[in-house]
């Protein structure tokens, strides 16, 4: 009778607040050997090399301009990270931006003011998230197939509405989201990025919802049998990704001051790159938000630093590819020793 007594004991231990350790190592040793520590080293290196390589790098305004390289992508990457940890993926995010931006353009033509435009953008993103969520979570279709489909679908609708035309002439106040500054060099987008980073940190690492996401990613069946409503969590994650794509759409449309159906083409791969570089296992189940934040900063700085030296874009892509592979390979090699 002693065997069945053990599981209830463990459950009571966890409900009383003690966290079950993921690895049997001291927290400090774990932190030092973690992915995030490695990313931090890479970040410091990239920053230092850039400062030496270009006299224009260490300038508050230039660095502020550089943040636009990653803020919008990072906003989506936070939600995508949670989705990938849960073992799903959403490849339609860039197309959601196109559709949300087109919807905002239609609203603008109908004479909507700034608050309505923002609501339309966020609402369209959310609606697209619902479509993905219903198809994946309710109907049980594989997310990679569903979102490859909706990737064409959402952008296709934009192309039907706009063709080779563009929406221009957004109201003046709308420009604030993509071009405005909260204080000194801190742009609205940068501040929003920081706020969202904290919010997603709390959601993934400090809430039951976050624990459920990890549980589903590690073993969805086990999670289901431990009372986690797997389908509901998956559905909410797609909603969240859709919503964040809507947020990014508002920022990007505001920054460009116009909408074309080709807006944000190819951004989904950059977002996924950012997430994977951030140490989120593509197989699900592990990774952290601080990792994604560091990955966003590294990608932004590498792009900007190479841009300052006028390195052709293709060399940048090669470097990012190598960075991605080495950052993934190094911990695996270390672990093998």
């Amino acid at each position, binding site marked *: 009778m002693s065997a069945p007594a053990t599981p209830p004991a463990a459950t009571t231990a966890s409900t009383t607040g003690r966290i079950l350790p993921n690895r049997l190592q001291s927290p400090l040793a774990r932190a030092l050997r973690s992915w995030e520590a490695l990313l931090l080293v890479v970040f410091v290196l990239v920053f230092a*090399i850039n400062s030496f390589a270009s006299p*224009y790098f260490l300038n508050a305004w230039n660095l502020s301009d550089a943040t636009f390289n990653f803020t919008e992508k990072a906003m989506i990457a936070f939600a995508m990270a949670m989705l990938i940890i849960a073992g799903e993926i959403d490849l339609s995010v860039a197309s959601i931006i196109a559709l949300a931006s087109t919807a905002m353009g239609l609203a603008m033509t109908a004479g909507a003011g700034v608050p309505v435009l923002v609501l339309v953008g966020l609402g369209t993103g959310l609606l697209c998230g619902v479509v993905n969520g219903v198809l994946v979570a309710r109907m049980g279709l594989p997310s990679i197939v569903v979102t490859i489909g909706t990737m064409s679908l959402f952008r296709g609708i934009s192309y039907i509405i706009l063709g080779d035309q563009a929406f221009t002439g957004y109201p003046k106040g709308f420009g604030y989201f993509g071009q405005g500054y909260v204080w000194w060099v801190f742009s609205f987008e940068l501040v929003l990025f920081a706020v969202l980073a904290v919010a997603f940190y709390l959601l993934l690492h400090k809430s039951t919802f976050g624990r459920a996401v990890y549980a589903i990613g590690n073993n969805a069946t086990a999670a289901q049998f431990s009372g986690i409503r797997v389908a509901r969590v998956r559905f909410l994650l797609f909603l969240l990704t859709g919503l964040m794509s809507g947020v990014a759409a508002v920022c990007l449309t505001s*920054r460009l*001051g116009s909408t074309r159906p080709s807006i944000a083409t190819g951004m989904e791969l950059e977002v996924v790159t950012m997430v994977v570089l951030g140490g989120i296992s593509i197989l699900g189940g592990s990774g952290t938000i601080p990792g994604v934040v560091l990955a966003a900063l590294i990608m932004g700085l590498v792009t900007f630093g190479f841009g300052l030296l006028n390195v052709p874009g293709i060399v940048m892509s090669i470097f990012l590819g190598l960075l991605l592979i080495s950052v993934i390979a190094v911990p695996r090699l270390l672990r093998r020793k």
Partner: protein
Amino acid sequence: MSILKKALTTAALATALMAQSAMAENVKIALVVKALGIGFFEAANKGAEEAAKELGDVDIIYTGPTDTTAEGQIEVINSLIAQGVNAIAISANDPDAVAPTLQKAMERGITVISWDSGVAKEGRQMHLNPSSSALIGNTIIKLAADHMPEGGDVAILSATSTSTNQNVWIEEAKKVLPNYPGINLVAVVYGDDLADKSYREAQGLIATYPNLKAIIAPTTVGILAASQAVTDAGLIGKINVTGLGLPSEMAGAVESGATESFAIWNPIDLGYAATMISYNLVKGTAKAEPGAEIPMGRMGAAKLDDNNEAAMSDPFTYDKSNIEQFKSIF
């Protein structure tokens, strides 16, 4: 160890690049293109380098995104602003999306012009078109007339009957016809920019007008199809096909003689002229305002209209003498 190795290679790469970019107080002109690795733009860069050599105190920064996206161009523009370049000359992927960033560049004292593919009016100081409708209209008639000393019948093979560009050019061509006595325009037909339909329309022209001396096709699809139709009918030397075409596609027709000559803009001249204009605006020797004439070195002067747009020149003529050089460019 791998991190160390990476750091060392990165550092080496960075220093090598830095040494290259560190230069004296030259005028820095950035030629921003739609995407790197496109022959047309590589040729424009050649022209820009030629202008830089002629001017002496100019550094050309030839750059652009990997894909033809507005977002990529904005990242490039931001890094150019940060480097404090003196001028940005851009062929835009999107006339509107790059405008806010270019406005920021102008606010920070950078001269901004667009060329080839324009930017919305508020995002640039001036725009340089490769040519104008009037110049194109005149050129296509002149190309035919040059090889018809005794005059004769010509026909136009256009794209679709609703193609705005082609219709304007044909309109302009009709206006200049009285300047070419003996040239008789007998028909305008439409091949819809489809290779097979254009080919059949050309065959129709050949059958209907036995005295036809030239087919003028102001479209790259039409000119190619018409030269094929003339070749297949064995009428090389009797009917000359001309108009607007791409050197890479037309090389065969020029070599066989089906086409004596044809025209299209010259990307080398375009890069050259954009650089010259940027330089003059930076140096203050010219101002970008309606009616102004901005010197473009060997290309003459760019005359700005009410929208601060200018046409560079007649389309450039390609024939047996230069097709070899250009067919690998675009």
